[in-house]
C-alpha cells in the first residue's frame, strides 16, 4: 500500500508540473519560445470569424496548361499572392491552394483587413506580362480565318512562350533622348535565350509587350538581343513606371485568377464575439463546477479540479500546436467539456451505486472506474471516429470542429479518467472523508 501511495504522489507531482507549464503557456504576453529547431510564439491564433478580416476565394484559370504543370502554376500563383499581400503589410496572411472538383482555387485570408477593396485590387490586378510576335498576313489569315487579307488592318500579334514568368527583375530608368520614364526588364537564363530567339526570328518586325492582355508598346526589332534585356517605354508617368516595376518584381501571376467568393467580418463583430464567448465560456465552466460540487460533494470537487486542468491544458495545446480558434472550434470544445463531465458522472454514479450496495470505498471506487470505463471508451472512440471522418471529408469550418473535438477527446480521457482517478484514490484514502456526507450518499458502510 505504501508503495502504491508513493506512486500516486509521483503522478500528482507530474500532473502539477504539467499544469504549471501549461498555465505559464496560457498566461498572455510571452515572448516566442524556442527549443532547438522548435519555435513558437505564444499567441492565440484566431480564425477570421473571431478576429475579423477578409476571406477571399479565387478561381485559377488553368485552361491551356497541361495537367502536370498545374500544381507548379498554382504554387506560383500562391507565392506571388503571398509576396503581394506581404507588401500590403498584413500580418500572417494565409494563402492556400486547393482543388474543388475540376476547379483550381486559391484561398486568401487576411486577418484584420476589413477594407478588402485595396487587397482585392492588389491581388487581382497583378500584371500579366507577355511578349507577342507580329504575324505576317498570310499567317494571320490562316489563324483568324479571314478571307480577304486587306480586311486585316494593322499588325496582328500572336502569343509566344515568353511571359512575365521569365522575368528576373524590373527597374525604372529614363529614356536617354526624351528623359521619359521607362521600365527595364531583365530576363532569367531561359528567358534570355527565348528573347534572343524571338528577336532573331523577327528582325525588322515588331514585338509587342502586352500587359494584362493590352498592348503597351510594340517596338520594331533592330537587332538580335542576347543580353536578356528589354525596355518597355509606354509613355508612363514616373509614378506609373515605378508601380509597374514594383509589381513586375513581385512577380506576374503564372495564370489568371478570378474572385468568386469573399467573406468580410467587420472588426466590431469579431471582437464582440470573442470577448463575449470567452466570458460565456468561463461562466459556463464555473457553473458546471459548482453543480458538480453540490451534487457529488468531494468527488465533485475533484472532478472540478480535473475540469479546470482540462481547460488549462486545452488552451496550452491550442497555443502550442497551434490550432486556429474559430466559432466551430469553440463548439467542439463545448462538446468535449460535456463529454469530460460525462465521464466523471458515469464513474461517480457507479461509485455511489456500489456504496449504496454496501461495498467499501476503495472497492466501490475501483469497480466504479472499471464499470464506467467501457461506456467512456465506446463514446470517446465513436467521437474520435466521427472527428476523423469529418476532418477528412469536411470543409474548413467542419475541419476546425473536428480538430478541436479530437484534441478534446484525447485530453479529456486523460483529465477526466486518469487525473480524477489518481486524485480520488489519494483523497478517499483519508478515513475522515469516508462518510456519507462527503460522498453524497444517504447511507454506506462505515469505514472499517
Amino acid at each position, binding site marked *: 500500500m505504501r508503495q502504491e501511495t508513493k506512486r500516486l504522489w509521483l503522478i500528482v507531482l507530474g500532473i502539477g508540473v504539467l499544469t504549471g507549464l501549461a498555465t505559464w503557456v496560457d498566461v498572455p504576453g510571452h515572448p516566442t519560445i524556442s527549443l532547438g529547431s522548435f519555435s513558437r510564439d505564444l499567441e492565440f491564433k484566431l480564425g477570421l470569424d473571431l478576429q475579423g478580416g477578409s476571406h477571399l476565394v479565387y478561381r485559377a484559370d488553368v485552361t491551356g496548361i497541361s495537367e502536370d504543370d498545374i500544381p507548379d502554376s498554382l504554387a506560383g500563383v500562391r507565392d506571388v499572392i503571398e509576396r503581394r499581400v506581404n507588401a500590403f503589410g498584413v500580418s500572417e496572411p494565409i494563402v492556400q491552394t486547393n482543388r474543388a472538383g475540376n476547379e483550381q482555387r486559391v484561398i486568401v485570408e487576411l486577418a484584420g483587413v476589413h477594407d478588402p477593396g485595396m487587397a482585392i485590387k492588389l491581388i487581382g490586378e497583378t500584371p500579366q506580362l507577355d511578349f507577342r510576335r507580329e504575324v505576317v498576313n498570310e499567317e494571320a489569315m490562316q489563324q483568324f480565318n479571314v478571307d480577304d487579307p486587306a480586311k486585316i488592318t494593322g499588325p496582328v500579334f500572336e502569343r509566344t512562350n515568353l511571359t512575365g514568368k521569365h522575368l528576373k527583375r524590373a527597374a525604372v530608368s529614363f529614356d536617354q533622348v526624351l528623359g521619359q520614364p521607362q521600365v527595364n526588364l531583365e530576363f532569367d537564363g531561359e528567358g534570355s535565350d527565348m528573347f534572343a530567339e524571338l528577336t532573331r526570328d523577327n528582325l525588322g518586325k515588331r514585338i509587342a509587350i502586352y500587359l494584362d492582355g493590352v498592348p503597351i508598346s510594340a517596338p520594331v526589332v533592330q537587332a538580335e538581343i542576347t543580353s536578356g534585356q528589354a525596355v518597355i517605354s509606354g509613355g508612363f508617368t514616373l509614378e506609373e513606371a515605378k508601380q509597374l516595376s514594383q509589381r513586375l518584381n513581385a512577380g506576374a501571376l503564372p495564370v489568371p485568377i478570378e474572385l468568386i*467568393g469573399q467573406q468580410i467580418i467587420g472588426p466590431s463583430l469579431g471582437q464582440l464575439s470573442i470577448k463575449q464567448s470567452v466570458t460565456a465560456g468561463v461562466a459556463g465552466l464555473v457553473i458546471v463546477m459548482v453543480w458538480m460540487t453540490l451534487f457529488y460533494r468531494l468527488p465533485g470537487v475533484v472532478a472540478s479540479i480535473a475540469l479546470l486542468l482540462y481547460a488549462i491544458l486545452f488552451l496550452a495545446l491550442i497555443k502550442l500546436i497551434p490550432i486556429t480558434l474559430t466559432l466551430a472550434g469553440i463548439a467542439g470544445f463545448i462538446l468535449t*467539456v460535456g463529454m469530460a463531465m460525462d465521464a466523471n458522472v458515469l464513474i461517480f454514479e457507479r461509485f455511489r451505486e456500489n456504496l449504496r450496495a454496501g461495498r467499501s470505498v476503495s472497492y466501490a471506487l475501483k469497480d466504479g472506474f472499471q464499470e464506467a470505463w467501457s*461506456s467512456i471508451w465506446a463514446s470517446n472512440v*465513436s467521437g474520435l471516429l466521427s472527428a476523423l471522418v469529418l476532418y477528412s471529408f469536411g470543409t474548413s469550418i467542419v475541419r476546425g470542429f473536428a480538430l478541436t473535438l479530437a484534441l478534446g477527446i484525447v485530453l479529456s480521457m486523460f483529465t477526466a479518467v486518469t487525473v480524477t482517478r489518481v486524485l480520488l484514490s489519494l483523497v478517499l484514502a483519508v478515513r475522515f472523508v469516508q462518510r456519507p456526507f462527503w460522498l453524497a450518499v444517504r447511507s454506506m458502510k462505515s469505514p472499517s
Partner: protein
Amino acid sequence: MIQKIKLWLIIPLVTMIVSIGLIVLIRPVLGIDFTGGSLLEIETKGMVPENVGAALEQELGLTSAVQSGEGSRLLIRTTALSESQHQEVLRILSEKDILIEELRFESIGPTIGAELRRKTVMAVAVALVILVVYLTYTFRKAGGLISPWKFGVAAIYALVHDLLFVTAMFVILGAWLGVSIDTLFVTAMLVILGYSVNDTIVIFNRAKSDWLSAHSGSLLNILDDANKNSLTRSLNTGFMTLLVLGALLLLGGPSIRWFIVALIAGITVGTYSSIFVAPPLLYFLAKRR
C-alpha cells in the same frame, strides 16, 4: 419507463413524419454559404428595412431582401455580387446617409455553395456508416442478447430522429424569423450527432453489462432498468451541458445565438431520444428475427 412499448415506438415515428412533413412543406431558408449569394451586414442610422431595399432597387436595379438585425443593424441579402457591385452598393448606402459601418460582407459564388452542400452531406453520411460499423463491433459480445448490428441501427435511428427534429424546428424558425440554415447550423448538427450517439451508447452499454452479469430477465425489463439506472447520469450530463450552453446563450454574442439555440434543442432532444427512442427501437428490432 418504456414499458408502454407501443406508445414509445409510435411517438418517435410520428415526430419524424411530422418533422419531414414540415421540412418538405415549408422548405428551409438556406444560408448563402449553401446557395451562393451575398450577405451584407451594416450598422445604420436606424433605417426602415423596406426603404433600404427600395433605394437599392431604384438606384442599382438590385433585388434584395433586407432584414432588421441587432439594434440598428441591417442584413441585406442579394444574389452574388462582384467586388465592383459591392462597392456600388456601399456608395449608394453612404450617399443615402444610411451607412455607418460595414460589419460583414460575404459573397459566395454558386459553385462554392453547391460544393459545400455536397461535401457536408458526404461527411455526415460517411460518419453515420462508420458509427454503425463501430457500434456493431463494440456490441459484438452482446450476441447472446441481440445481434450486434441492431445496436448501431437503433442508435442511428435515434440520431436521425434528433437531427430531423432540430431541422424541422429551424425550418419553422426560418419561416417565422428568417433564421437560415448555414454552415454554423451544420456544425451544431455535428455536435448533436456526437452527443446523441454518446448518450445512446451509455444506455445500451448499461443494458449489455446488466444482461451479461444477470443473464436473465426479459429484454424489455433489462432495457427499462438500464434507462432507470442511467437516469441520474443522463439528466445530470444533459443538464450540465445545458448549463454551459445557457451561459453561452445569455452572455455569448448575437452571432452565435441561433447556433446555441440549435445545440440546446439538440441536447434536449438527444437526451430524450436516448431513453425513449433508441431502446424501444432496439427492442422492436430484437423481437423481429
